[in-house]
């Protein structure tokens, strides 16, 4: 690890100011950033810790939607979101291990937008809104391909607003080594229709399977998608699975998600 300065502001405004320094980078749970720094693959000059800002932490209801602060850990979402949005709590409770969950945060996960991360699937399938220090970004506009988002330099995720579905499920198929999602599917049924988001599968990062959404909006049953298939073009192919395999997984997991939605 190279040397760096460390600041821990207690308000969003102070954090934004701190982020304007040369070489500043946001630090949330550090579960992605710190290993990268230890391997000397990243060397920020200033780390701006976001975990000291009280109003970006915790879970509450906000006009019928679930509001999750940007610096809320996976462990807190797993326990406190359960009574409002159990599928989201399930997802958070399935990330990494207890150590990762008690430090890693939703804001860090979304800002990073790892193509195999879990949260992007929930955010996209829920049609959630990402709140930043300066604006609100719809989930459909936020994710812009692997490790790429609509965030500007220095922009800080302060929270996420999740409309609460009637029923939902996240079905994750573990990559055997990392246990990130080899493929994961989040299915959410709203009065307005069904949304299906797939993570881990596409070289473009998380995406909506709109064909399945249409079929499931008409009939929320596994049988409704039986005749559909996802093309393997554009799917990730690596040691852990071919493109065709991931396309198959996305479909199988969607069916299982529909069957287990609660």
């Amino acid at each position: 690890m190279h040397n760096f300065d460390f600041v821990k502001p207690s308000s969003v405004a102070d954090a934004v100011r701190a982020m304007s320094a040369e070489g500043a980078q946001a630090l949330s749970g550090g579960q992605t950033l710190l290993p990268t720094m230890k391997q000397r693959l990243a060397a920020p000059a200033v780390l701006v810790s976001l975990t000291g800002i009280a109003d970006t932490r915790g879970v509450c209801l906000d006009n019928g939607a679930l509001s999750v602060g940007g610096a809320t850990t996976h462990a807190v979402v797993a326990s406190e979101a359960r009574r409002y949005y159990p599928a989201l709590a399930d997802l958070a409770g399935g990330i990494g291990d207890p150590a990762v969950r008690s430090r890693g945060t939703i804001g860090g996960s979304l800002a990073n937008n790892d193509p195999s991360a879990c949260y992007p699937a929930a955010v996209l399938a829920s049609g959630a809104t990402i709140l930043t220090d300066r604006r609100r970004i719809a989930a459909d506009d936020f994710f812009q391909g692997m490790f790429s988002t609509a965030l500007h330099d220095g922009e800080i995720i302060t929270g996420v607003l999740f409309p609460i579905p009637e029923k939902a499920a996240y079905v994750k198929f573990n990559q055997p080594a990392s246990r990130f999602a080899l493929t994961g599917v989040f299915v959410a049924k709203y009065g307005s229709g069904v949304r299906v988001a797939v993570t881990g599968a596409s070289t473009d990062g998380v995406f909506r399977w709109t064909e399945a959404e249409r079929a499931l909006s008409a009939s929320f049953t596994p049988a409704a998608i039986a005749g559909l298939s996802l093309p393997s073009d554009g799917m990730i192919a690596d040691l852990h699975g071919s493109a065709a395999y991931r396309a198959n997984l996305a479909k199988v997991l969607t069916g299982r998600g529909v069957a287990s939605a609660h």
Partner: protein
Amino acid sequence: MPKDGGIGASTVRREDIRFLTGKGRYTADINLRGQAYACFLRSEVAHGRINKIDTAEARAMPGVLAVMTGADFAAMGGNPAGWHIPSRNGDAMKEPKRPVLAHGKVRHVGDAYAVVVAETLEQARDAAGAVVADITELPAVVDMAQAVANPDLRVHDEIANNVCFDWGWIEDNRAAVDAAFKAAPHVTTLELVNNRLVPNAMEPRASIGDYDPGTGDYKLYTTSQNPHLSRLLIAAFVMGIPENKLTVIAPDVGGGFGSKIYHYGEEAAVLAASKALNRPVKWVADRSESFLSDAHGRDHVTRIELATDLEGNFLALRTETLANVGAYLSNFSTATPTFLHGTLMAGPYRTPLVYVNVKAVFTNTAPVDAYRGAGRPEATFSIERVVDKMCRELKLDPVAVRRKNLIQPDQYPYTTPVGLVYDTGNYPATLDKLIEIADFSGFEARRAESAKRGKLRGLGLSTWIEACGIAPSNLVGVLGARVGLYDAATVRVNATGNISVMTGAHSHGQGHETVFAQIVSDKLGIPASSIDIVHGDTSKIPFGMGSYGSRSLAVGGTAMVKAVDKIIAKGKKIAAHMLEAAEGDIVFEDGKFSVTGTDKAKTFGEIAFSAYVPHNYPLETLEPGLEETAFYDPANFTYPAGAYACEVEVDAETGRVEIASFACADDFGNVMNPMIVNGQVHGGVAQGIGQALLEAAAYDDNGQLLTGSYMDYAMPRADDLPMFTVDHSCNTPCTHNPLGVKGCGEAGAIGSPPAVVNAVIDALHRGGHTHVTHIDMPLTPSRVWSAIQN
């Protein structure tokens, strides 16, 4: 039996107290006054010509004490191969020099070509970033078939076709084997890959070199499974230091699985740097370095053929194997695919004719060497897979076929067609036991229940044998070993009656400190708590060969028992004098020397005291003191054997395999501590399941390691594994060592992979996917799903 547990007691492991409370003392925990820190520069290309290494800028960086490159070590010797394996045409094997640091060329990603030493580790790393290496990348040789076929691709310029040796075993049998195949009613052929593995000991390698300019003595603290062997290699072959001027200390070592048997260049580099700087130099590998530079395991590509009659009686077996040795020969790399593999190709069966051909192939990958089981897992996997395939082809019951081909209990000693003599065993008994403990008769009901949940259930079997307790020196000498494989122990009884045992075996997690003390306690009637087991320091212990090949108890333990016998014999002489009786009338029992038929007796403590305070002592005929050393060279290998069963559930939609149950019926000879034996089997089976389902070291075509971290290299975790059912009640004690022990350290890793794969193939067949005859390990969800699709 002594009150805190003798032979056969499940004594809890005394070393766990320090390990579990963070009081272990590993190499990285040792900090010497004034120590400097080393950071190695490692090749980022698999193959390259070193044009120039510019160290000027690095040398000028803050805190930098030295920068050394391959040129600084060019005059030193190479790290040698421990076995010479001649080709079947009589040619000597090809032994390219393995330098301390790469010189002229780099030959695999991770090949170290320079080392920076600085006041702090961060300074060393910073300066390493400032070393400018001008390396021209050359085409990499990664695939073995290509390496052998293409004379223009060379890992070592002087070795055409990259073949180290082309070994036939036993060459004289070849014609008869070929003839048997021609005449056979049925031949089953299987091409398979034994996947390359990274050992992944929990503790990465680490070394501290400490040169004392006052005495000219060198000390090396290092993560070694055999400190004396490392000393010998460094002293006599690599650095030319007199052996008496080098002490090697392997303190607590956090697992090895083979990877810490070998001497590595980093050890010589820190010693040389310490001498140059007159201060200790420390290096601790990080996990990424371990992935790139520890010796890997397995990596065979094999074609195996089994000739049978139509009832499944084995007539002949023939294999052709390409064995990857990587870029350089690691110390046991040539023995592993030959004498630890070819000689096991009879398995537990009466196959009358066997011929094995192995070509060892250089590639631009990390060196490959012995890894838990070493050659025997490869042999067992090939045999047990081809037997299962034959059973399917001929529609025969895999249990019945194995049963009728097993060597029978009245056939010992049994001479195999591949040069071993099994001293004892009872393979049908372990198979029967397995069928009972794995509840074969309930399988159909379990299968039906799985089917209700949409899962395909399968049952797989393997009957295995291994040769361990390595090894009779005269035999291995004939076979090409350049070392002896005896072991040694010193039993020192102190004046107050407690005991220090110095053993040549090395415990790096196995529990020797507990078990060895149990044995001495049992033999001498002294509480185990009064007995200390000392290991790992060449300045304290007699010259031993360390721990690997499930040899610690069978060889090192026997040396210890022989030293104990000498103590008892001397004690009798002292007792005879003190009790004024004839030596022949003294009996030793329960810690007491007594005159037979009388109540006259002296306790062990009184005898020990008398040996050190010899006031009433036969000084004219007997030396004072009570300390004995014994060396023991085994008369034969030991032959643990067993039968394993695995049940799996396959999710055909995703290809995911779940292990539903795993049962082991083993014959380890006499068992000293059943709890520790269970633990060894659990760990071995976990590694075997890891190989079968999860683990693979994969290089791309350019020789880049694709699985260089735990993000991509899948280690088995507790929730990947079932509860294990382990039985070792079917014992046939080894006939040629006094404890009757055979060894259990590698068994689990040897017997389990074929049981898992056989179970998955069985599940797929029962599920109607009968086109799947084989899937190469690891059976990842993606591979299993793809096999089902095709």
